[in-house]
């Protein structure tokens, strides 16, 4: 009883804060404290649930992460609103799971359906969720904008990346080195698929693995028999169609819910789609062909081929971003209401960007299959949990930049390298769990630098390029304003002082008072005894 009353009060406070945070503060509630309590309550509930399912569940990161799909399916049945309906949904899913385990005997191709049932229930329930009303207010996504490179600049950048990789292939000339460099490039192509979707249009997908799988299949069945590189086009096309199909239910969701929905789709695909005969039920084996006289069987030649593919796909994306379609994408992100009233069909725009992103992931799948010479449903890249780290890597690299995908690819491979090779060092214990800890560490780094590696590099080195010297610096509210001449040839304005105070972190009561109308300077202020 006591805990129920306590829970009720916490829940209500949490609800108030969700409802109207500033109003809650006006009534004297302390929003931060209530948020902390809500988190604490939610964590302890999860821990209680953990105790209850301990007999059935193994202590495994991936398996426990996948539990979120069951929970999310129940929440969607409750329309993310009704507690009793959510409870009923959870009971339904639990019953379906345990009854199917006992009474539903599925052999052959539908073998995987049993474990995919929660995800299937979720997808069905999603179709009953009404579409979001277009909101007439600006989205809360940060509006950081990054410079869009000109095509020529981008081409130069991709050439530079390719040259760096080729040079590196001579330094790290052994088999492992070459394999790792190739893996950097194939991962980079995969991460490119996040750039239009997450970087430009602000949508999150954890389901990119599905399209890699589709790429495996579409490319594999064609290419393995004919050795024709046109299989890449086929992979892109089939994946694009799959992307649009996946987007249909997913479009009803936004933000965190969209991420969870795509995650569920990825996991369901793993259990149902790949196991079909003719898809990835049996492993597909490849031999790399000769292309324009170059033998792709040679690993270094293949690395060059990967660099070319990265450049081609990257350039295509930059071209899209510079086109009217790219502008429209940003417009839909910045203000859906304004875009709709100008005649932009929001549904079509969102479907299209999902399809584009899926096409890129499909190409990446084809490339990965070609690299590993075999495509199988057991490939770790198809594991839905991998989708989480992929998103993280590309955000660390800089999700709004095509070069960010490359940086993310390098970072992903570095972590793998450290884990494999530093086993003998005194810190081996730490490194063994590195890939478990690294994402969390990386998440913290992302908080402090949302631009990612590529964004920081662009800011730091961009001005070294002769043709970018004259460009205006991006407006940063915390940057010291133009104080040129202040205190010498002209007085400090209030803005000068405020921007300096902000930058130096001066507490409000200590700030120097400057009369906006009175010309003055720091020296004059000091003489007046104000400093």
């Amino acid at each position, binding site marked *: 009883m006591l805990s129920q009353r306590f829970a009720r009060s916490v829940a209500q406070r949490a609800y108030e804060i969700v409802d109207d945070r500033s109003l809650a503060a006006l009534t*004297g509630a302390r929003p931060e404290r209530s948020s902390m309590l809500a988190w604490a309550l939610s964590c302890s509930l999860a821990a209680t649930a953990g105790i209850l399912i301990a007999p059935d569940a193994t202590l495994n990161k991936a398996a426990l992460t996948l539990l979120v799909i069951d929970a999310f399916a129940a929440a969607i049945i409750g329309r993310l609103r009704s507690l009793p309906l959510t409870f009923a949904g959870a009971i339904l899913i639990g019953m379906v799971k345990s009854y199917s385990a006992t009474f539903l005997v599925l052999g052959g191709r539908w073998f995987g359906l049993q474990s995919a049932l929660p995800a299937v229930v979720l997808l069905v329930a999603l179709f009953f969720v009404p579409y979001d009303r277009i909101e007439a207010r*600006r989205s809360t996504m940060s509006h950081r904008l990054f410079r869009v490179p000109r095509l020529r600049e981008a081409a130069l950048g991709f050439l530079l990346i390719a040259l760096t990789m080729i040079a590196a292939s001579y330094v790290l000339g052994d088999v492992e080195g070459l394999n790792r460099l190739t893996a950097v490039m194939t991962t980079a192509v995969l991460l490119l698929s996040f750039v239009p979707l997450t970087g430009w249009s602000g949508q999150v997908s954890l389901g990119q693995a599905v399209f890699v799988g589709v790429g495996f299949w579409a490319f594999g069945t064609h290419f393995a028999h004919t050795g024709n590189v046109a299989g890449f086009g086929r992979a892109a096309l089939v994946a694009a169609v799959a992307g649009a199909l996946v987007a249909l239910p997913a479009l009803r969701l936004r933000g965190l819910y969209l991420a969870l929905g795509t995650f569920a789709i990825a996991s369901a695909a793993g259990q149902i789609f790949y196991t079909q005969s003719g898809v990835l039920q049996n492993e597909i084996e490849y031999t790399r062909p000769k292309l324009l006289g170059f033998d792709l069987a040679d690993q270094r030649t293949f690395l060059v081929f990967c660099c070319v593919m990265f450049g081609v796909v990257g350039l295509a994306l930059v071209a899209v971003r510079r086109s009217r379609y790219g502008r429209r994408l940003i417009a839909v992100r910045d203000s859906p209401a304004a875009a709709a009233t100008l005649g932009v069909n929001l549904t079509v725009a969102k479907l299209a960007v999902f399809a584009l992103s899926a096409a890129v992931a499909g190409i990446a799948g084809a490339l990965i299959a070609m690299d590993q010479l075999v495509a199988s449903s057991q490939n770790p890249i198809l594991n839905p949990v991998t989708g989480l780290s992929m998103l993280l890597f590309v955000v660390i690299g800089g999700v709004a930049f095509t070069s960010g995908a490359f940086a993310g690819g390098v970072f992903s491979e570095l972590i793998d390298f450290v884990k494999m090779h530093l086993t003998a060092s005194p810190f081996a214990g730490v490194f063994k769990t590195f890939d478990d800890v690294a994402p969390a560490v990386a998440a913290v780094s992302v908080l402090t630098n949302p631009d990612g590696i590529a964004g920081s590099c662009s800011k730091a080195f961009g001005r070294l390029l002769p043709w970018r010297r004259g460009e205006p610096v991006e407006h940063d*509210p915390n940057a010291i304003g133009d104080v040129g001449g202040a205190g010498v040839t002209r007085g400090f304005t209030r803005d000068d002082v405020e921007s300096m105070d902000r930058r130096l972190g001066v507490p409000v009561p200590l700030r120097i008072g400057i009369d906006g109308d009175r010309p003055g300077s720091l020296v004059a202020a000091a003489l007046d005894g104000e400093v």
Partner: protein
Amino acid sequence: MALLEVHDVSVRFGGLAALSEVELAVESGVVTGLIGPNGAGKTTLFNVITGLQRTNTGSVRFAGTDITTMKPHRRASLGIARTFQRLEVFGSLSVRENVLVAAEMRRHRDADRRPAQEIADALLERVELDQVADARVDTLPTGTGRIVELARALATAPRLLLLDEPSSGLNQHETEALSRLLVDLVNDDLAVLLVEHDMPFVMSTCSYIHVLDFGTVIASGPPATVQADPSVIAAYLGDDQPARVTSPPTAPHTRLGPADSPALVLRDVHAGYGNIEVLHGIDLAVGTGEVLALLGANGAGKSTLLKVLSGQITPRAGEYELFGTAVNGAGPDALARAGLCTIPEGRGIFRNLTVLENLRMLTHTGGDFGAVVERAFAQFPRLAERPRQTAGTLSGGEQQMLALARALATDPHVLLLDELSMGLAPLVVEELYEIVAAIARGGVTTVIVEQFAHGILHVADRAAIMLHGRIEEIGTPSDVAAELASVYLGDR
């Protein structure tokens, strides 16, 4: 036949009728004005016309086609374009790209076969934005953002242009340029529907005006007719004419003048949002137990001043004292616990909680839940009838009663009210003011912000008029009442 015909349109948000049975027509070749007090439903009507808001009843016809259930982008392709009251620019694109997005949407609708780039550049020159064409829009001031929205709307080559307060944030020169531009546009046979608070601008630009109040069209006609219409004057200034304002109702306790022991003191307070300063030096003292009415048109800085008082905004400069203690920088929750009760603009309630749950919120500042419920229900029997109803589904007046229950049940020292009367019928407002007067008689220092005078001057001890972030006039209610008409209806 008019280009746009709105017939019998009603929109309800829970218990609030935002629009009821609105009839309205907009002709080509003229600027039609749409005016009315805050919360009258003007923006809702725009949302209905552009398809962002569904109607409960009624129909909208555009150029003979029924568009009532048509999606927004389809309406845009028929030739409807709009701007927004709260800026909806594409902030991370440049000015030119903002206009380009629109220009690229116009496709096969007109004979103008120029490339989109050319159309955009020509438009930017026309609205004098060519100097800032390559600047990112969210680095520009609000006024410029409005012109960007205007240019963007024009780039779609519309037949009907809906402008939602285009002149707010513009300076005198820009407003005049806007006025000239509108005249040019309607000469090209465009239809313009203009929502605007700047009365001189409306009266000089529009050839026909609809007046909306409480979601109903209360008057339509040429500017001169509307200006003289008694129901319009009543909507803006309250049913009572300024001359009939009498002294406040009998005060059982001795009222203290501001000089005695001020409860609230502001000294040269400057405050604002981001790069924009809204308050340019406010000096104000409110005595203990005094009722101060703070009046002024939209954008004068009244709500900002109230946010400073409630701790939601920290002043950039100046001092804020509460009962003699400096409280610069104290948060809203700290001030609430110190005895400040704020009822913000637009229903100070949690819409998704029930009546009882809302009342439970009042115990954060200390106090027994049972006692709070008892006092609230004794004062408002209508709330006692529906304790488990979700607050968002109460009628507008009931919602404000629930908000006022906080002021009654928690014994605050200071009460801050922001636009209590917004969107409520005059009778309900009168009832609410009586409650406020009763609370104030208990010795509670009260600051009440209203856009329009209504009956608040009966309740107040003193009144102040704000204009452009400064206090323009402060004095007895009858003195201030004499000034009001000129401030509101645009003789100034």
